């Protein structure tokens, strides 16, 4: 039996003037889950995080986080959640160590534990040797690590991450991904807002896709693909001299009118998994030398583009 959800949202709505930032949002997030919240800029992701932490008041609907009402129980709730904001929001005139010390006190970490915990987090986030430098002198990756350390310092039960790898180089982004994976292994719940689809695909068990504040899809990437009727994609790489023959076989065997071709790789959408052995046999019979046949599940990117429409996304 699935555990009780730690986040329950029903009809949550927030307007800014005439703009509806979050529009009748319904979702549930379960303990230990890495939950992705996807959407363009302005889709309502950040507003949702603010509403779920009682930083903004909703205009309608309800939210319960860890069984608490974010609006009425804000201070108690925020003691149990951690938020990495879109910009690191660090006091750049203070040192890395001072940034952590002050927030440890704000989050009511027991006084006797503060020095040890600060040192331990500086170590964990590879900032120990720069702990006494002003945060303003840190690289973007270091600032993000410090902000992440600050969000985790009080060992929150739910961690909200708003675009945690935006602007980071691949190595720094990899560090952040590792950290999120480690948190999920510790059974912490992670609410990850991102428009990095590869990141969401890699890290999230389930995703919600927002558009203009509305929830347009919710589920695992595979479920979303199924709901959208997106089929498996098949890539077939053949020897260059066999491309024409291969196109002919694909058309005949699978009934695909016009398979996509890039160099000597054919890309076929709509292939049934059971048709693959027969297709390979036909290609061999036609004298086509096959280098690679790769069935591919629809990616989150496929789903996302399908949901938003390729023209709008591009």
């Amino acid at each position, binding site marked *: 039996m699935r555990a009780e959800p730690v986040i329950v949202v029903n009809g949550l709505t927030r307007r800014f003037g005439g703009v509806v930032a979050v529009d009748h949002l319904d979702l549930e997030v379960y303990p230990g889950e890495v939950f992705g919240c996807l959407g363009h800029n302005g889709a309502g992701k950040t507003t949702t995080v*603010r509403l779920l932490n009682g*930083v903004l008041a909703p205009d309608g609907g309800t939210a319960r986080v860890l069984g608490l009402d974010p609006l009425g129980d804000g201070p108690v709730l925020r003691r149990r959640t951690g938020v990495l904001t879109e910009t690191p929001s660090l006091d*750049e005139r203070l040192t890395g160590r001072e940034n952590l010390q002050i927030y440890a006190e704000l989050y009511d970490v027991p006084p006797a534990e503060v020095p040890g915990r600060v040192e331990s987090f500086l170590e964990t986030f590879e900032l120990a040797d720069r702990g006494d430098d002003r945060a303003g002198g840190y690289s973007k990756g270091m600032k993000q690590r410090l902000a992440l350390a600050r969000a985790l310092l009080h060992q929150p039960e739910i961690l909200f991450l708003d675009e945690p790898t935006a602007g980071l180089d691949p190595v720094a982004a990899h560090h952040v991904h590792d950290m999120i994976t480690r948190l999920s292994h510790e059974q912490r719940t992670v609410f990850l807002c991102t428009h990095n689809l590869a990141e969401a695909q890699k890290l999230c068990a389930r995703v919600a896709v927002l558009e203009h504040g509305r929830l347009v899809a919710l589920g695992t990437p595979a479920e979303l693909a199924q709901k959208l009727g997106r089929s498996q994609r098949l890539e077939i790489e053949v020897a260059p001299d066999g491309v024409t023959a291969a196109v002919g076989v694909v058309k005949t065997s699978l009934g695909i009118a016009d398979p996509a071709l890039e160099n000597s790789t054919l890309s076929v959408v709509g292939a049934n998994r059971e048709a693959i052995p027969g297709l390979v046999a036909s290609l061999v019979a036609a004298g086509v030398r096959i280098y690679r046949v790769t069935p591919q599940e629809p990616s989150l990117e496929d789903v996302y583009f399908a949901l938003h429409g390729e023209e709008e996304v591009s």
Partner: protein
Amino acid sequence: MNWRAVKAIVRKDLKVVLQNKGVLIPLIVVPVMILVAMPALAAFAPALQDMPGTPFAGMDNFIQGMPPGLQAALAGYSEVQMVVVLALVYFLAPMYLILPLMIASVIAADSFAGEKERKTLEALLYTPTTDRELFLAKLLSAWVPALGIAWGGFVLYSVVANLAAWPTMGKLFFPTVMWLVLALWVAPAVAGLGLGVTVLVSAKAQGFQEAYQLGAIVVLPILLLVVGQATGVMYFSTWLVLLLGLVFWVVDLVLLWFAGRTFRRHELATRL
């Protein structure tokens, strides 16, 4: 009330202020001017008595035009000493009030509007502090140093005034009861005035400079006091200073009540 969190925010804001040269320089230069340079110059004024055209010649008429209370306060002093006492005890008194006003305004502008400008407010809003704790911490961040400098400055002013005027006065003449009331009763209220106006202005301002410049309007009542004394329209007395303090405290309460209403997490978050 989570006093540990309040103290942490106060400490953070003060550390941040001390790292900002744009804030720190006026916090050093203005007190030095008001507490050291001006009283030293004022005490030096008697040296002008031998110069032709100085106002000492008409001192008798000047004294005759003063309120009886002030005449009584100056009784027993020589003309030269009267000039020193008038300058150091009366004319510079409203100037002293500029100190807590300016310090509270500068730090409040950095603490409220500057936090928004540096984009550090959002992280603070996500902490478990209540709106009241945040507001109180921000007020104390500006009010405590303003008071500290005002009271420390009062001691410094007393020392400088007595030292510089010693050749003329030949005795300790400062502080007076009126100045004690000014420092202990009016200065905290004036700091609150600067604070209240700056917090209200900071709600709309985008950054430190804008908040500080808009908040500068608060110096007007103090300038009126300076002009009032210089032109003889009014003179500070203990009772007047007590009344003045009361007026400032009432204005503070009104301003801070309105400021508290603008300082709500849900409102602040909409302007991030």
